[in-house]
């Protein structure tokens, strides 16, 4: 499928990939039914055993929105100002984005300072008369105060509903001020999953920030798209003679611009692959399709694929052998220490599949996982990116695989069923606090590169061993507090017990 980069709005994930957010069963069934068929409404195009249909739930709990993802990841782009065209509440995220940016800057060695974002602060009067006047004022303010190299303008539920034309305002002021203004169409209600926010920001980057006339291919430059955090990629790829152009998760603009000059693009999570697919489609920069580098075998294959694509096959086997030998003793120690432990993974789609692989390679038993959404396909449509099937084929089935958009009551049931020794989860949302309160030690992954490559196994294994002794704290709290659920739900072990079974 071709990405439509002509239009300022990105198509949502459910439109492009058939993304679902509610499902319950075993991983092999989900992989089989996904089978890259583009979802429930377009059955019969692939090899799925039945149509991939969603569950429905009468109860839903507060979740997250695409605007939050798009705006956060725009805000951490350097030399930018982000304008949230919204009532003040959408900009509540400024506080945690500030914390995130400052932390990121300290880790990456950038100047620690406040990120720049402005909210148009729309009120009742603007809802009646429209808010584009305030948007214009905000753009002028952003320019006058900060002289940024790029201004992002993000829509919100409110401005989507009242129909403010942010593109026209952006175009007019771009011409007048001479600054690039990128619109981000990210009304929270338009997609049922927040990960569509990744597509929105990557759509904006592809359309406006990537250099459209790359001077020449840089044969040793490889784009790596990640979620944020320390650069764990250069140590893996520099021995191949490659320079890593690390993007997303806080990028200088020049890195985004030169993505079109690179020799290939790797993604640390296929949830973010819109950008990689777009670079291949628009600029012929090929996307690394090998399964994500979680676990040693997958990392071997990932390196071999990159070596093949960049003409470095001569060096890759030596690197693989050296890396494996380097981590072997510590890996053996970790496996001994983790033997018999039971883990539970909660994260988003491909990222969850990767963490599952890590845990199984570490010798941890994992028969339950919780994914915040599920993409039956990826934008490239390449079956090698089917990370769930890869997981099942490599490491076997996962008996209880729950797809739920961070629903506390469902995660509660899933944990009651799994009763793991520890939970490893993506940091956002309710899982970490929930697990802790149930007496289960929890490892939240803030910087999501932690589990990647050979060192990822070491990093994750060591982190698990650090949190296991905290059981005494969590169990003490669990014994002295309870959640406001009725007794029957506290005992419930089926996350979808409230739902009518899916067709």
């Amino acid at each position, binding site marked *: 499928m071709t990405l439509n980069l002509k239009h300022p709005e990105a198509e949502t994930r459910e439109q492009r990939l058939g993304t679902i957010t509610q499902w319950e069963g075993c991983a092999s069934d989900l992989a089989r039914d996904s089978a890259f068929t583009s979802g429930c409404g377009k059955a019969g195009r692939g090899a799925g055993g039945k149509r991939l249909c969603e569950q429905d739930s*009468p*109860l*839903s*709990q*507060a*979740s*997250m*929105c*695409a605007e*939050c993802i798009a705006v956060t990841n725009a805000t951490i782009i350097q030399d930018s100002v982000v*304008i949230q065209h919204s*009532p*003040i*509440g*959408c*900009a*509540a*995220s*400024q*506080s*945690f984005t*500030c*914390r995130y940016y*400052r932390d990121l800057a300290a880790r990456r060695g950038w100047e620690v*300072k*406040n990120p720049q974002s*402005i*909210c*148009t*602060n*729309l*009120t*009742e009067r*603007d*809802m009646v008369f429209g808010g584009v006047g*305030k948007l214009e*004022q*905000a753009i002028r*303010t952003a320019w006058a*105060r900060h002289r940024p190299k790029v201004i992002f303008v993000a829509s919100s*539920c*409110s401005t989507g*509903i009242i129909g403010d034309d942010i593109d026209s305002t952006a175009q007019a002021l771009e011409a007048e001020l001479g600054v690039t203004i990128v619109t981000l169409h990210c009304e*929270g*209600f*338009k*997609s*049922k999953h*927040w990960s569509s926010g990744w597509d929105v920001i990557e759509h904006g980057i592809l359309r406006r920030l990537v250099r459209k006339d790359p001077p020449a291919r840089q044969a040793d430059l490889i784009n790596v798209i990640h979620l944020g955090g320390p650069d764990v990629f250069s140590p893996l790829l520099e021995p191949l003679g490659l320079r890593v152009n690390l993007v997303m998760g806080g990028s200088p603009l020049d890195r985004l611009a030169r993505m079109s000059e690179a020799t290939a693009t790797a993604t640390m999570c296929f949830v973010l692959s819109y950008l990689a697919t777009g670079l291949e489609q628009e600029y012929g920069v090929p996307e690394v399709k090998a399964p994500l580098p979680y676990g040693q075998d997958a990392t071997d294959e990932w390196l071999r694929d990159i070596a093949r694509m960049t003409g470095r096959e001569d060096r890759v086997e030596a690197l693989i052998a050296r890396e494996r030998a380097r981590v072997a003793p510590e890996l053996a120690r970790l496996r001994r220490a983790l033997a018999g432990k039971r883990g539970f993974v909660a994260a988003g789609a491909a990222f969850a599949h990767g963490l599952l692989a890590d845990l199984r390679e570490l010798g941890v038993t994992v028969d339950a996982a919780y994914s915040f959404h599920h993409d039956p396909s990826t934008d490239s449509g390449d079956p090698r990116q089917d990370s769930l099937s890869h997981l099942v084929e490599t490491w076997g089935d996962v008996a209880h695989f729950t797809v739920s958009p961070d629903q*506390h*009551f469902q995660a509660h049931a899933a944990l009651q069923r799994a009763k793991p020794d520890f939970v490893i989860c993506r940091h956002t*949302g*309710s899982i970490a*606090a929930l697990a802790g309160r149930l007496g289960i030690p929890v490892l939240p992954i803030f910087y999501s590169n932690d589990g990647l490559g050979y060192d990822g196994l070491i990093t994750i294994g060591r982190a698990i061993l650090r949190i296991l002794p905290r059981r005494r704290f969590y169990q003490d709290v669990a014994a002295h507090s309870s*959640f*406001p*659920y*009725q007794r029957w*739900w506290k005992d419930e072990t089926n996350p979808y017990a*409230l739902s009518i079974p899916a067709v």
Partner: protein
Amino acid sequence: MTSLSPNPAPASCGGSCPLEQVRYACTLGAITSVIAIPGAQPITHCGPGCASKQFHALSGISGYQGGEFQVPSTNMGNREVIFGGADRLDTVIGATLKVMEADLFVVLSGCVPALIGDDVASVVSGYRKRGVPIVFAETNGYQGNNFTGHEIVARAIIDQYADDYAGPVQPGLVNVWSLLPYQNPFWRGDLEEIQRLLDGIGLEVNILFGHSSRGAEEWRQVPRAQFNLVLSPWLGLETARHLEQKYGQPFLHIPTVPIGARETGRFLRAVADFAGLDRDRVERFIAAEERRYYLYLRDFSAFYAGCTSQYQLPSALVVVSDSAYNLAVSAFMIDQLGLVPACHIITENPPEAERAGIVAAFRALSDDSEVPVYFAEDGYEIDRIVRATDLTGHLPIVFGTTWEDELAKALDAPLIEIGYPCTDEVVLSRSYIGYRGALHLIERIYTTVVRAETMG
């Protein structure tokens, strides 16, 4: 020292200009006021990220306060926006009642249902008629902020849940309306200290929010109280006026949340006079508290006199926060520790009608020098005002938020985080008010000063 007059909001954007470095949440942020009531359960009718954003901002990242967040929400999508969301709300409320337990459910609505015209009130009142303890607070995000939302929530609970009580008042029972939960990172410890103080002089207290509240049952008792105490520059006045009109309850308004012995003594005596309490008991309590307080202050005076240290102690006060803590901390630092007021910026956009009263309260803080007070919410403007302040010869200290970190570094001043967002403090029961809190505040301030000098 330069003194600009309190600055009105520019007319060009009707008092709600675009803002940088946001310092409060939207009206729906009052979801945290519901979470602050033990046994109360919010249900939100809004977009998918609205409630989480407000909670994560006010609680998760600010003081790392935690709190119960398993909030049912309609997470409105395309279908609801196009066809209306009332049916989905009905389904979610029904499922909530089946799965969750609470003494009181509070439905809060966001921007989306208001814009598409959902009749939320009739959905909620249907459940109430069937005996479900449930109320509706219309908290459209664009109609105000979490301060005004707090009063909307309070009024909804009073009007739709508290007893329709017409009996005699209970002498000595007081309803307290004070700091805004979660917005103020120290609200839990502070409300406990207020309760302890009022209890100490012989009152029975409906503290209404926080860990020492009896929750929904306490809210039922609101109409029986002898009087309402509004302990803040303006927040709570609207609720108190409403209660006065509804139940004939008088209210006492004390703008300055007391920090330290002098202010707390004044506060307790004013309350005692208003409530007609036994003066001897009040004085005995104050004397006992002061004895402990001043023993600690006596010990601290050795450090403050500098006989054991070479530290450069701050002399001039820059305070950037919402009015309640701004006034409280300023009063304490000027009156108790003898700092000079330099720049006091009020950031929560108080109602126009209350601003003159706030300015007057600041003006009364110092006989020696004028207290420069400004109203500004925009971080860029705040930075400009502070940097324009003449601090010649002074060593400034900044009380503010995480946003002021850059500014404090530029001024080479220690920063004490006292307001949202507060991302460099982990707060549990710490309080900065009353007798005990004042001692904690002194510890925090001078530990920060010492560490800044010794650890860089």
